[in-house]
């Protein structure tokens, strides 16, 4: 297992990796941008033009206070208003497992963006498998810390599932990095061997169907 530790700028580990994929000056839409850490970082370090969508009023106000362009709203609806190819990248980090209509949303992402970047917690991690096998209860991990009755997560996704989904729907898989980190951690490691078993999160760059 090869690992690379990173802790550059106080940003969540998966966001650091996502940021490293983005070219200077790019136009970026961050769906579910939270307190705007990623678009703030991209603006400061890469002179990127970031826009965020966030549901939570308090988080939206924090973003606007920092001088970011952020809209309060539901990501599934807000994506509908943008013209085709309005962005170089549309990012959906740690949110896919909460999306009601993933296919519709991914279609929207790749309509309004040239490329999409999607990350989510890997449900086929060995701890989850083991927990279910040994305890017989629905698994609870640091990445997916909720009881079945209070979880915002309505889907369980394995890394393999997502690769299959991309293939079956004729999207293009451009890049994949699988990592071992926790939801809010600033450090983590890249997993290269058996990621479907050992990675807690997968990050994917996807593109439009070119066929």
């Amino acid at each position, binding site marked *: 297992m090869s690992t690379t530790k990173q802790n550059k700028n106080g940003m969540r580990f998966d966001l650091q990796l996502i940021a490293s994929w983005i070219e200077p000056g790019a136009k970026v839409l961050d769906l579910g941008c939270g307190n705007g850490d990623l678009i703030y970082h991209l603006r400061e370090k890469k002179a990127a033009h970031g826009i965020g969508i966030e549901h939570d009023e308090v988080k939206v106000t924090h973003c606007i206070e920092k*001088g*970011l362009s952020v*809209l*309060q709203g539901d990501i599934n609806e807000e994506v509908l208003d943008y013209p085709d190819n309005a962005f170089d990248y549309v990012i959906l980090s740690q949110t896919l497992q909460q999306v009601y209509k993933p296919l519709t949303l991914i279609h929207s992402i790749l309509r309004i963006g040239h490329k999409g970047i999607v990350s989510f917690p890997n449900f086929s991690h060995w701890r989850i498998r083991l927990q279910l096998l040994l305890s017989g209860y629905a698994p609870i991990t640091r990445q997916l810390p909720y009881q079945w009755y209070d979880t915002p997560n309505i889907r369980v996704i394995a890394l393999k599932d997502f690769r299959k989904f991309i293939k079956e729907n004729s999207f293009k898989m451009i890049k994949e990095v699988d990592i071992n980190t926790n939801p809010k951690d600033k450090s983590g490691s890249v997993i290269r061997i058996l990621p479907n078993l050992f990675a807690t999160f997968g990050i994917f760059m996807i593109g439009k169907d070119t066929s």
Partner: protein
Amino acid sequence: MSEYIEHDIDGVSVGVVEKKFFNFAEPPNQMVLENGKKLGPITIAYETYGRLDPEKRNAVLVFHALSGDSHAAGYYDPDDPKPGWWDIMVGPGKGIDTDKYFVVCSNILGSCMGSTGPCSINPETGMPYGLHFPVVTIGDMVEAQKELMDHLGIEKILSVVGGSIGGMQVLEWCARYPDRVRSAIPLATTTRHSALAIAFNEVGRQSIMADPNWNNGDYYAGEKPNLGLAVARMIGHITYLSDESMRLKFGRRLQDKSDFSFNFDADFQIESYLRYQGKKFVDRFDANSFLYITKAADYFDLRKQYGNGSSVEAFSKTKAKYLVVSYTSDWLYPTYQSRSMVKAMKKNGMDVSFCEIEAEWGHDAFLLPNRTLNSMMKGFLERVYNETE
């Protein structure tokens, strides 16, 4: 909008300010109004706070709503009991920081707070205009503000800011003079009145016109239509509040009594409050101005005027960066109206931020102390200022 006029809790203020007057459109160079009529001479009352920087990059225009005036901040005299109407927002270190920005607020055309309006003297007759005053539009108000900007030598405005009818002026500026506006903050406003908003305004106008003292607008020499204007104001106040705010503020509580009076005195606190607001208003506001300004607001339709009915097309002509804010309990200009303008801005690929602030105080929330609004405006203005080349 209401008269809340709160003192800044930290006691910070721009200090003593002065109302100034700008005169233009002297005959034969009268201003041609949207309805084709000519008006002149015109006086615009205005105030400025802070300093215009040498490059003239830091001008912020603040617009008042229906019943406001040019006195947005500070005091005319150190002993004034109350500061300007948006003193909580405009001042040193505040949301619109007068240490950084040069703030201009002018009284709208058609009002009665120092700018030319129906109570001004008609030079042709030597008498107040009354109904001889031409019907002005939000566009005409903005045109007069543009003259003032030219007079002050300000070509590019850093930001245009306003709520309610002030927000309409913000939008009108963006569409009418897209190259002169770098950013815009429309608060609790709309691209056009709904039938509901027009309905309330019409009841207010009917109330004034039904007052025998109104006398077809010719009342300046005698008794004023105070009853009609007071009732119009009472209706206005209902629309500025919300079911929730009235329930919290008044409920069914009685005013200075323990039981019903079984007559038509003000039994309930809400009745007493509305009567008080109505009475207070007639001392400072002109009934004809109420007619003209509400009509201008009803006529305002950004989509029709700039987009052949489409708000997407209307906003395509604008170039500003936007911060749009609405309030959850505003039933005069509900959030869906702000969202629809945000949608149009997005479709045009414009730089827009939007926040719906949770507030129980209805339409008037933008005038009340709210740290969220202050800090968002501060962050937004700072960014657009830094992005100014």
